């Protein structure tokens, strides 16, 4: 997991990209959660969680991502999940995760 340099769009949206590992479980999930909170404290208004490396998201992963969404919305920021594989998209739709965060797949 790593974070790309925070970029500032012309519209004044401060975006941070956080990269998740191949398997999103408690250990890796909590690392992402901490990273996201840090970025929010730095004033980011958009968090992009890149799931391109992530093959499986289990229940713990979902719980953590919902936590990220909650913390972000309390801070007035929005969350984007990018490069999400088909299975995970299906899971997000089934559980309603997609109602709270945009899913953006470029590929």
């Amino acid at each position, binding site marked *: 997991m790593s974070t790309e340099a925070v970029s500032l769009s012309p519209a004044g949206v401060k975006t941070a990209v956080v990269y998740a590992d191949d398997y999103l479980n408690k250990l890796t999930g909590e690392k992402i959660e901490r990273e996201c909170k840090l970025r929010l404290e730095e004033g980011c208004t958009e968090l992009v969680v890149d799931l391109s490396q992530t093959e499986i998201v289990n229940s*713990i992963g*979902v719980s953590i991502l919902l*936590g990220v969404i*909650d913390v972000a919305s309390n801070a007035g920021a929005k969350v984007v999940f990018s490069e999400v594989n088909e299975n995970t998209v299906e899971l997000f739709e*089934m559980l*309603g*995760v997609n109602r*709270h965060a945009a899913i953006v797949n470029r590929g």
Partner: protein
Amino acid sequence: MPHDNDLKIEDFHIANLKGLAEKRSKLVHTFGALAELGHEVASRSNFQETIRTSLHLILGSLGIMRGGVARYSRFEHELNMLAVRGLGDSFPLSLELCYEDERQFLTNGLAAIEVSQAAVLPFFQVYGRTFDDTRLELFLPLVIRDETVGAIFLGEKATGEPYTTYDKEIVCAMGRHIGSAIAQRNLLSEIECRSDENRKLYDDLKMTYADTVKAFAAAIDCKDKYTEGHSVRVGKYSEIIGQELGWNAEEVEGAAVAGYLHDVGKLTVERKIINAPYRINAKESAELNKHPAVGFEILAPIHHPYADVPLAAKYHHERLDGHGYPDGLYDRQIPYIAKVVNLADSFDAMTTDRPYRRRRPANEVFEDLQRNAGKQFAPEIVSAFFRGILNELNGETKEKKFRKLLGREYMEAEGLAVSLRNSLNAMTPTSNLTMISTARSA
């Protein structure tokens, strides 16, 4: 009419393939979470971690935005939060239950309660506002084997839909796992607490016993004005010997007690014989010589935490060569503890003033002990005793026990350390000779 999301066997006949696929993956997802939860609870890892993970699994399995797990304290009548997610800082860390709540939860059993429908219960009246603010929708009292052990609080689902019967069943199944983990933990704490109480009780008893023993020793010594403090000193010397013999703490305590009580039989001997300011005659001597057997009779019915205390009293006047009393036992027939007390007793007799003679000089006493090793005393016990004294003389002990008991002057007799070391070497098998002299002269 069944809710849209309820999974029924009939559903599988409906030719809605997409719906079926979605339901199947939902099943796979939730059962995956259930399996993981079962594994987590059974793993016996850190309890707090287990609860935190369990909360993640419940929230993640159904896509629930927020929630918490609490443990119920039946003594404080409080639900104490063990893990929370997304409930905010204003959510209380402990929530009180009244008698009516407890009763209702028990009747309800392990079944989900919809917060919006539960306003009749005092609990939901008291905390209703907080629950509204945190958007709590479901409350699950964790009732395990007719006992409330905790509760689960759950917020809104990410889908924005209400909880279905299926969801509630999943929540209950997971709740049962979490409840069992809490119940197991409670049981463990109770056992720990009990064993802790037992230990304290045992320590108290031991202290009471030690006080009683000291009181007895004082009573014995009180009777003999010339040998004041004799029992206490014999106890202390026996303790030192036990330590030098490498005994464990319990055995060393036992040696001290045996020393304290060795002359308890003297309580029944006439005071005028004990306090006779002259060498007593044969008849008086016979009377005095009953004290070991009488001591045994006094001590035997008492349950001592240490073995052999009564035997120490009975045989502390026996000698290795069989010339002792009351039974004229030989070396191996004499209980070891009695041999220890015998040396301590003899040493104190030689190093304290008696009405008919002054105490003997230290060097002479040690020579005497060495000479009698193998006749009256067990040689290895004499060696152990000498080592104890030498350790103190060489400044290797923090507490100066001998100096306290015998006086600084007595212990500073010229050449004492050297003659003790010589005696020790003379009594020690050759193979250890070099080792001891090197160690001591260093």
